[in-house]
C-alpha cells in the first residue's frame, strides 16, 4: 500500500463517519454513509483486497444505501432533536 494515499482516504473516511452521524437530515446521512462505504472500498483496493472492495462497493455503497433510502421513503426524513 501507499501510505500517503491511504492516510488521506482514511482521514476522509473518519470525517465522513463523523458527519454521517451528526447531520440531522437522514437522507444526507445515508448518502454520506454511501460515500463512506465507497471510500472504504477504495482503501481496500489500495490494500489489495479487491474482492472485499468489490463487495463493499456493491453492497455497502449500493444495496445498503438502496435499502436505507427505501426505508426512509416510508418513514420520516428528519431526525428530531
Amino acid at each position, binding site marked *: 500500500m501507499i501510505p500517503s494515499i491511504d492516510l488521506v482516504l482514511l482521514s476522509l473516511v*473518519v470525517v465522513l463517519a463523523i458527519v454521517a452521524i451528526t447531520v440531522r437530515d437522514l437522507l444526507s446521512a445515508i448518502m454520506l454513509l454511501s460515500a463512506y462505504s465507497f471510500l472504504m472500498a477504495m482503501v481496500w483496493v489500495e490494500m489489495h483486497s479487491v474482492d472485499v472492495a468489490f*463487495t463493499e462497493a456493491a453492497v455497502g455503497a449500493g444495496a445498503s444505501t438502496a435499502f436505507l433510502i427505501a426505508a426512509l421513503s416510508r*418513514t420520516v426524513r428528519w431526525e428530531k432533536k
Partner: protein
Amino acid sequence: MLEWLIEEIFAKYNYWISITIMLIGFYAMIAKGNLIKKLIGLSIFQTAIFLFFISLADIGPTLRGTAPIVSEAMIHKGYVYVNPLPHVLILTAIVVSVATLAVALALVIRMYEEYGTIEEEEIIEKERELGV
C-alpha cells in the same frame, strides 16, 4: 517519545483509524435516539471491524504485496500475496451485515407504522401510554 509515536501510532495508523471509526459507530448506536441513525452507526461499526481484518491481511508497505489472484507471471516476478483468508471472512461478514441491516430496516418500518415515529424516546413514551 517520537520513536514511540512513530512505532505505535503512525506505523499502525490503519488500526488506530479502525478503532476511531469503531468508537464513532458505537457512539451512534448507543447515544442516538433515531433508529435509522442507530443503524447507520451499526454499519459504521461493522465496517470498522472489516477494516481491522483487512489491515491484518495486509503485509505492510515494505513488501510488494499484491492481490491474491493466481497468475503465472506474478509468481515468476516474485510478488508476495496478501493473505486472502481474512478477505473471505469479511465477504461473509458483509453478507451478515447487509442481512442485519435489512431485518432492522423492516423492523423500523413496521415500528413507524405502529407508532408513527422512529425516535426511540417517543416510542417508549407511546408504549407507556399503552400501559405496558
